[in-house]
């Protein structure tokens, strides 16, 4: 806890006491997040056929733990996160290497690291760590630097290392999210638009090569995505049943705990990846749009926080984490209704599962931290004043 004593790292004008920080806490934003979690708990209760076990109760406990973590993260000084951004990144990268070497195999992929007490999914931590590291990297750079190609080599490497390790697990969804989140941060940092276009063009051209690098089951998923009706009892079964559940919800839905597709186990993974389908089945178009609106508020609020932060590190951190959150929402919703292949990304704050919830709350803690310290100006190298 050395950072509390190290008073030098605070800018004197904007240094806030702990009490002031708690006062500055953005309770509206936190309320929105908790509202979505409540929807999730209710859905998990319904998924279990009207029971707190086996999902809703553990999820609630995780929520409480995550909430504490959020508080702790938010109340840490912003400078602390900036100072140790690369450290966190290196730690997460190290864990990823460990998982590759001695990780736990679950569901056909090596994603877990069993630490005795908790099972850690380092790829989730990396989502936060990469945003932190990139925000730190771009914080002090002038536009001239950002627009030079040489300056972009280190951050590209920072992205490629974990993406390569995660692809190896294999976890296409998380790898994709890291790539998109990095691209988003590059865009926000001011990298020229034509460079994105060039990279996209290059990617399209090299698509046939990438195809050969995919694992068999990944290829199968893409093929199934392209034509799910082709194989209604094999790999296409999930997506077809998901569409049936969603479509049969209609305008008003079948009612709380009345979804036949989920209740009779036709819907696969109803408590995790396909939970949005279940909400749509039981609450119809009204419920689905309502949830979309909640997500839109959270994302929009994240943008507002990014815009009003004084420090560039804060701006980038808030927007990067918001992009990350939006990617969860977009990818999950798209895959359950057949807009993209099933890649195993949960619906944020709602899907059952511990690591994702914890990661998301760390993220929200950081965004809160940015908002608490929105007046704070940070110098090029993190000093008080380096004009």
């Amino acid at each position, binding site marked *: 806890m050395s950072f509390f004593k190290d008073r030098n790292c605070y800018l004197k004008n904007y240094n806030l006491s702990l009490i002031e920080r708690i006062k500055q806490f953005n309770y509206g934003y936190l309320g929105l997040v908790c509202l979505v979690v409540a929807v999730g708990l209710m859905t998990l209760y319904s998924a279990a056929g009207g029971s707190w076990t086996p999902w809703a109760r553990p999820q609630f406990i995780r929520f409480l733990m995550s909430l504490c973590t959020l508080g702790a993260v938010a109340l840490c000084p912003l400078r602390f996160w900036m100072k140790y951004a690369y450290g966190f990144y290196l730690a997460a990268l190290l864990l990823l290497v460990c998982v590759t070497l001695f990780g736990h195999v679950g569901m056909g992929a090596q994603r877990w690291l069993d630490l005795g007490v908790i099972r850690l999914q380092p790829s989730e931590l990396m989502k936060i760590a990469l945003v932190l590291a990139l925000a730190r990297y771009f914080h002090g750079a002038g536009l001239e630097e950002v627009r030079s190609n040489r300056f972009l080599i280190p951050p590209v490497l920072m992205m490629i290392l974990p993406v390569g390790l995660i692809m190896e697990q294999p976890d296409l969804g998380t790898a994709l999210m890291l790539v998109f989140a990095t691209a988003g941060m590059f865009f926000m940092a001011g990298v020229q638009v034509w460079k994105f276009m060039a990279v996209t063009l290059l990617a399209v051209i090299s698509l046939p090569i990438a195809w050969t690098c995919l694992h068999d089951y990944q290829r199968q998923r893409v093929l199934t995505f392209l034509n799910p009706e082709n194989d209604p009892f094999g790999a296409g079964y999930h997506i077809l049943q998901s569409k049936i559940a969603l*479509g049969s919800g209609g305008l008003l839905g079948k009612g709380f705990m009345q979804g036949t597709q989920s209740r009779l186990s036709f819907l696969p993974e109803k408590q995790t990846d396909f939970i949005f389908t279940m909400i749509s089945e039981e609450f119809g178009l009204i419920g689905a749009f309502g949830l979309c609106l909640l997500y839109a508020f959270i994302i929009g609020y994240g943008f507002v926080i990014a815009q009003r932060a004084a420090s560039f590190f804060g701006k980038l951190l808030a927007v990067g984490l918001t992009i990350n959150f939006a990617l969860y929402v977009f990818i999950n919703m798209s895959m359950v209704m057949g807009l993209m292949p099933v890649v195993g990304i949960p619906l944020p704050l709602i899907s059952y599962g511990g690591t994702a919830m914890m990661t998301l709350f760390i993220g929200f803690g950081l965004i809160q931290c940015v908002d608490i310290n929105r007046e704070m100006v940070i110098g090029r190298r993190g000093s008080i004043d380096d004009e």
Partner: protein
Amino acid sequence: MSVWRYEKAQVFGVRLAALAGMFVFVGLIIMGRIFYLQIIEGDKYTVLADKNRTSVRHLIPQRGVIFDRQGRRLAENKKNFQAVLIREETKDYKKTLAAFERLIPLSEEEHTRILKEVPHKKAFMSVRLKENLTFDEVALIQVNTPDLPGIQIEEGLMRHYPYGASTAPVVGYVSLVNEQDEALTSTNPFLDIAGYRIGRTGIEQAFEETLRGTPGLERKEVNAFGRSVRVLEKRSPVAGEDLFLTLDAELQKYALSVLGDEAAAAIVMDVKNGDILAFVSAPTYDANVFTMPISTKNWEKLLYNKKRPLQNKALTGVYSPGSIFKLVVALAGLESGDISENTSVTCTGKTKLNDHVFHCWRPYGHGKMTVQSALMHSCDVYFYEMAQRIGPEKIIETARRLGFGAKVQTDLPGEKSGLVPTPEWKLAVKKDAWRTGDTLNLSIGQGFLNATPLQIVTAVAQIANGGYRLTPRFIKKTAVPASDDKVPLNKGEKLGFDSYHVALVKKGMYDVVNKERGTAHGARFDLNGLKMAGKTASTQVRRITMKERLEGIKSQDELPWEYRDHAIFAAYAPADKPRYAVVVLVEHGGGGARTAAPMAAKILKEALRRFMPRAAGEKE
């Protein structure tokens, strides 16, 4: 504020707005997709969800019982115990199966079928191990229950044929649905029902829809694993209608016993209304073996038997009618005026036509013949001569009127129509002109002409009843057996023959049996004055060569079985007031008089004793 900070913040603001725009765009795509799936295509997915959650099971109705004319059961539904295996109730189904087979051995085929079926079916579904368990086997399984986890005894209904073999040609049989049936009638709801047996031949096939009834229905809510959660709807099956046949099962059984080991057919018909009292094809098969999957060995045994037990010879066998056709020629001649009662021909044993010699069956001839004596002696030369005078057209027309060359009934499926050759037919099919020789062959029922035993008995019955049209009937509508002597003569359509001419033909038939030197004199009987009248036929299956004729014609017994003549005898009784017509056809039986006539006489006597009180006080 420094420049680097200011510029970057400005770029950041603009890009944040652009990013927000992109996100709104993606959000709109997602919401549009939700709208499309839930509102535009919502109905389609609602239907699919309902189809998912409900499972419809059809319940087999009780199949209609088939009775004979006296109310005897010919096809019924018997309680059937079957052993089934439920995979989820045993740890190791292979071990359970092995334990089961130690108690009740299964065939190799069944063993492999079960091993293939068990892992493929859902764990809580039952797989049939053995049907038709005896009470001893049921007891054996129950005693050993602890060693047989997962094995249960289920009770069902199984079609049973009490007269098994003898009634098979009429009643037919049912057997399990196979893939070909499914391709044929995919709309039949019964085909989906596990264990449903469909009518294959005979009445079971022809009256399938009457007998099977209406299936019941059970609609259940099921989960994704197929396990039922609750019953939504239940409709009990409605049993099929019972059928009453014109057959007399005991007469049928007796007739079969009379035919013995021969490849033969026998039919008894009521000449007043066309009721079929007996309809036998021999050798036959036990209809009960088909209700369960038949083993390949037994199937091949039936299939490759040279006496063809699976063929219904009475209905689908076509044979030259031989000398029985002389009845038709005589009637044609009488009707056309070419023959009168006294028209005579002298038989010298042969007729010369151009360079070809047509022989009478009796080498030295019959002497002076009239129509009545020509029938009695079955003189070939008389009919050779007459046929030339009558001409083929008149004979063909008369044959057609009596039912030759076309199907005569509609109750049983698969009937053959036989063939009455005409000059046009010969030109079209054989690419050859009709010659006088063809007319001569036709006059003695040989050559291209052929007919089924059912057509022969129908023709004879229509002569016996004085020329009234008959349609052979297998189905009697009412349950109560009619009092036989009071059945009114079917005063339906007359065939248009002069009753005097018909009577003259019948006189000839009477003489065949009852006059000394009549061809079937040996088979005559007299039951309290009830006598028989008939006509013999021995039809060649191969030509007799000139060489053989010179060497002396071999006796039928000296020939190999396949070369012997077919023996046919068609008759009716009582001779004075005809009531029952009969035909007996014995493949390669040698002579009609020697082989078929005594059999026909026995069957007729049995019929008379059964149905005519007068014959009961029998003296012989």
